[in-house]
């Protein structure tokens, strides 16, 4: 059975929300759902303390949560199947380490959204904070698979140490976008902060909006890369404006970061 959770009141402390997954809750009866204990500070508090549990509609693999969940961290953490649809804001580390399924957030997400993500689809209708699609502290790799779509703006250090997958931000991004990137694709629809691609070894950053201020460790490449550009641009069309006309745009390629491996690239469109 699928469920719809409606937040009655915001918790006093931060709550680890990774147990709020469609796969975990759909097998439970309504009373069992209310008794699911979520870590909050040093305690575990039953879900029923904060949420009304209502029957959902449609597909069994969908869990809807309504309300401002900005005190709930790791919403969709470890998600591997099904759809989790949050109608409101969420806290830190939304989609932490998710490997599959879809996490749809109708509001904003705080820092570390899509952190250590390995697969699946994470879409944030609003803005997200710093270090989205990046690595957990101490980890070598950031995002290693899946797709992160941010309809609003993203903060600093977006896609830090990203290794695989696709990150698409329709709005502006902060400083050090794709810093230390190992591979993967970051597409930016708006403006970009300072030092994009700082320390990137491989990977691609597509600028569909304003041209970035590239550092001196990126060099202009004048040879033809039209085939690759068409493959990439056609793949990004599915994300809609401002990426839908990329195949028709001209592209300038800057290779770097020469301070490290230098096999990354900034793809500036016009």
């Amino acid at each position: 059975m699928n469920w719809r959770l409606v937040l009655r009141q915001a918790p006093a402390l931060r709550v680890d929300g990774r147990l709020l997954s469609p796969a975990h809750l759909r097998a439970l009866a309504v009373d069992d759902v209310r008794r699911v204990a979520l870590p909050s500070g040093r305690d575990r508090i039953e879900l029923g303390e904060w949420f009304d549990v209502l029957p959902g509609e449609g597909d069994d693999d969908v869990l809807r949560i309504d309300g401002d969940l900005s005190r709930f961290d790791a919403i969709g953490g470890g998600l591997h199947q099904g759809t989790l649809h949050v109608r409101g804001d969420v806290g830190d580390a939304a989609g932490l380490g998710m490997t599959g399924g879809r996490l749809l957030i109708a509001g904003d997400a705080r820092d570390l959204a899509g952190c250590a993500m390995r697969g699946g689809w994470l879409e944030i209708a609003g803005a997200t904070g710093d270090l989205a699609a990046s690595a957990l502290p101490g980890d070598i790799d950031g995002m290693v698979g899946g797709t992160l779509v941010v309809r609003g703006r993203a903060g600093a250090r977006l896609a830090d140490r990203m290794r695989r997958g696709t990150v698409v931000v329709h709005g502006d991004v902060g400083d050090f976008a794709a810093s230390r990137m190992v591979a993967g694709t970051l597409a930016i629809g708006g403006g970009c902060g300072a030092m994009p691609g700082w320390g990137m070894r491989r990977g691609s950053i597509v600028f569909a909006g304003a041209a970035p201020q590239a550092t001196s460790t990126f060099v202009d490449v004048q040879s033809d890369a039209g085939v690759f550009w068409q493959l990439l641009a056609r793949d990004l069309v599915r994300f809609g404006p401002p990426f839908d006309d990329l195949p028709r745009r001209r592209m300038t390629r800057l290779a770097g970061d020469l301070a490290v491996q230098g096999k990354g690239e900034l793809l500036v469109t016009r």
Partner: protein
Amino acid sequence: MAALLLNGVTIDPTFAEAFPMKATRLVITAHDIAWARHAAVSATGLATSVIACGCEAGIECELGAEDTPDGRPGIAILLFAMAGKELVKQIERRVGQCVMTCPTTAVFAGLPPDAGEPVALGRNLRFFGDGWQISKVFQGVRYWRVPVMDGEFVAQESAPVVKGVGGGNLLLLADDTDAALAGAAAAVAAMRQVRGAIMPFPGGVVRSGSKVGSKYAGLIASTNDAFCPSLAALAPRSELGEGVRCVLEIVIDGLGEAAVADAMRAGIAAIVERGAHAGVRRISAGNYGGKLGPFHFHLQALAPAADGVP
């Protein structure tokens, strides 16, 4: 079973015997169709028969810019080999020497990724990049970008190999060389409209049809004496009657039994439509008594309906 007469053309009560092969489709794109064709012609060269070429290959069709992954004009080629291992070797050799070397080209798998077992396409060719190569994954499909002197050579990492059918054939028995050539050319033109099939011999036609074995030890194939006009009065197994002075064969490989059958059907229909007065008076086929190949294409079952023939 009696011979079937359609528009004066005799359809023998026999069948073409075909064999399972390993096959794949590759899409070669380039800056314009001329360069794509150069690469495709080169990559499918010396690929008429597995007897000595390693594989059989041919151009399947031209593709418009809207039908290729990179929006450029392209050409689809099909390659067939008796074993998957040999096909892998042939793909790598031919793409490496004939496609990667051709200006502006890129190469992609022409079959869906889940169509069959993936084998290396750009996976090993990437090492030509000497460490400068880079890859990119789009929706689960990896592509390699190898720096070359005109920019970069883009190749999909792998291509699926599927079960194909090789050795479908038609034998066109004609009054003379002119009639045989004209009939064969018309049949090949019709057969080339069928997707998923190729005719791997020069111009789609072979004049040195072969039988299995030889009087000489070590030769696995030798001339098809039963259909050699010069041996009509000499060879004890001759299949030729009075007036047949030229026989040409069309060999067909296809991605499936249906593709081979469709191509043979188109070829027979083209000959029948021209009529016996055009010089091709009989259509036959080569087989080994049905004991070797599991695919039997009966000519009369593929012939157009008698009442539909003008």
